[in-house]
């Protein structure tokens, strides 16, 4: 069993904050596909299309039959630990700061022998369950976990560098007025977040669920309107230095295409929340979080963006809203670049139509706010950066991968009011 992670003590104000360092990040262009799958929580290796040989590490051609037709495919996650050691010294600053560190060789059921980080509860020569995740450098790595869940397993020191577990962390949920915001708060409380700051815009307007929200353990309601630069800056001045996870639940959604709109004010409101709101949060909270990526057991670790899957390709039924979400999606990629090397992950959740009042006439299947909230917390605990949620989103992402231009054409032909 893993030693139970205790709530981190208050920070010593006389000590300098440890700056983020990174494990080795160099990868070949071929190997980036491994990191891309790892960011989705998938374990994928190259498989030779001609001889079925599974290849590790990534190569240009099959070492067995010399075929160049190598496909990235998800592989079974079983394996066996055949050799292990504990590093006690390293020339790499990142590992020097975190010694001792367990690594080992695992024979995958799929064939290859791989070098992996080893969970503390894995015994010598035992069966293991392999995960692929992005590490603090942002690149994909392998870790061997015990085959069966052990006590306090998520608290393992090495595993916790790959995840963004809310346990003992302080989280900002930017909009608590909605069901989505409130479900997210409840899921975080259940996951052991030590403090949940909840942004409430326009406190002078009553909202459903306010009493229940205020009663959740660890919740602190804070004035926050992400359409107002002053409000965002004021909150960051207060809690920016202790925001370990930021979850942007604020969104402004209205049905309608460009020509169905009379004037630009609705589109501007959408941009004010969905794009400029994100921008304001990044400018106010980003620098502090980026500087605290290695700040102990409750370091800053994740920034969560919730985006309609139509951010990938416009659906004219919600044409101008999705245009603003496309802008937000693009900005989230910019944020990923800016957070690179900080140890803070940008988690993007692409979801299908949500079960809420603005999407009420849309047919099922829809994603309930609770399901989206649970998916956020699951992604954080697992250290997953890219989440696709709901049948509609899964379908759109699949078709986007196949051919974004075909998808664009299909969405153009989608009947109004009907999710495709």
């Amino acid at each position, binding site marked *: 069993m893993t030693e139970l992670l205790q709530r981190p003590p208050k920070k010593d104000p006389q000590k300098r904050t440890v700056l983020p360092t990174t494990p080795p990040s160099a990868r070949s262009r071929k190997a980036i596909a491994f990191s891309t799958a790892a960011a989705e929580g998938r374990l994928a290796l190259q498989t030779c299309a001609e001889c079925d040989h599974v290849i590790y590490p990534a190569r240009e051609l099959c070492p067995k039959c010399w075929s160049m037709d190598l496909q990235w495919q998800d592989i079974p996650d079983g394996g066996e630990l055949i050799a292990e050691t504990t590093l006690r010294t390293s020339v790499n600053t990142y590992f020097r700061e975190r010694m001792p560190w367990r690594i080992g060789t695992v024979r995958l059921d799929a064939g290859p022998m791989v070098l992996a980080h080893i969970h503390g509860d894995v015994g010598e020569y035992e069966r293991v369950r392999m995960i692929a995740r992005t590490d603090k450098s942002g690149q994909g790595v392998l870790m061997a976990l015990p085959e069966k869940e052990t006590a306090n397993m998520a608290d393992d020191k090495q595993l916790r560098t790959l995840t963004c577990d809310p346990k003992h962390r302080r989280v900002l949920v930017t909009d608590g007025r909605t069901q989505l915001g409130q479900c997210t708060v409840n899921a975080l409380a259940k996951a052991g977040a030590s403090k949940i700051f909840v942004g409430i815009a326009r406190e*002078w307007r009553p909202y459903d669920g306010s009493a229940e929200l205020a009663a959740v353990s660890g919740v602190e309601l804070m004035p926050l309107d992400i359409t107002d630069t002053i409000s965002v800056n004021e909150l960051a001045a207060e809690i920016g230095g202790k925001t370990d996870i930021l979850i942007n639940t604020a969104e402004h959604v209205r049905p309608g295409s460009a020509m169905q709109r009379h004037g630009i004010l609705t589109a501007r409101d959408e941009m004010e929340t969905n794009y400029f709101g994100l921008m304001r949060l990044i400018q106010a909270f980003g620098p502090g979080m980026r500087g605290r990526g290695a700040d102990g057991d409750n370091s800053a670790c994740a920034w969560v963006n919730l985006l309609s899957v139509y951010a990938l390709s416009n659906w004219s039924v919600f044409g101008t809203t999705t245009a603003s979400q496309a802008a937000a999606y693009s900005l989230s990629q910019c944020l990923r670049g800016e957070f690179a090397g900080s140890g803070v992950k940008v988690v993007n959740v692409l979801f299908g139509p949500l079960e809420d009042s603005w999407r009420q006439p849309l047919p099922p299947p829809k994603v309930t706010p609770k399901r989206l909230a649970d998916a956020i917390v699951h992604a954080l605990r697992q250290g997953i950066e890219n989440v696709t949620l709901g049948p509609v989103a899964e379908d759109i992402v699949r078709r986007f991968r196949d051919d974004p231009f075909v998808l664009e054409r299909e969405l153009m032909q989608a009947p109004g009011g009907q999710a495709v």
Partner: protein
Amino acid sequence: MKGEKCNTLAALATAMSSGEVETVDLTHTLDSDFPVIVLPPEFGQCAPFRAEVVSRYDERGPGWYWQNISMCEHTGTHFDAPIHWISGKDLPNASVDAIPATAFVRPVCVIDCSKECAENEDFLLTPEFIQAWEKQHGQIPAGDWVLLRSDWSRRSSAAYLNMREDGAHSPGPSADAVKFLVEERDILGFGTETVGTDAGQAAHFSPPYPAHHLFHGAGKYGLQCLRNLDQLPPTGAILVCPPLKIKNGSGSPLRVLALVERASK
């Protein structure tokens, strides 16, 4: 006659510097969190006040500070022109840029309903209440501003808008009171401390929003989100309320002042 001047302004200047005439500020600060009127979500909405720094003695402008600001014409302490309402849309000189400037400096009557509003948040000003006030303070002269003092401006945040599931609850004039002020008294305009000139429940009156419908239909003006009305006498003060000169503007945020004569010291 050339060179001769009436000495009223000189007397006023003397009275102002001696404190005999005081300037009272009836304006709320333009603050991004100050409540604005809330309409059903499918309608267009009144934009709250926003400020974005252009530069603040920094790389964007090393020696100077300035902001870009944005808001609705009806945000914060603001002026309503007749063109704001459909009933006033065809009147002449009905937008803020066309209203004669004389309207912006005029005597004001203040009807104190603060006690009644404290007891009843849906208090309605009636013709009878106005006539009872007139018994004490004299008939409201034609061409005066009339302000409803409710002390509502002392409320803040949720209590100010006082929004519930059946809508907002705040005081205002009854339809009969509006008709009386228009037809019997021919006032210049009507002002309140609440977010609008109408009562919170005025959507359910006949006609709906009587203050907007009837005052603006008769070419009268509105002022709302006023404060410090408790510092004004029932009669005798001068209201100074020039809105921004916005082309075809339906209203404008503005600084509202009152000149008040104090008992000589």
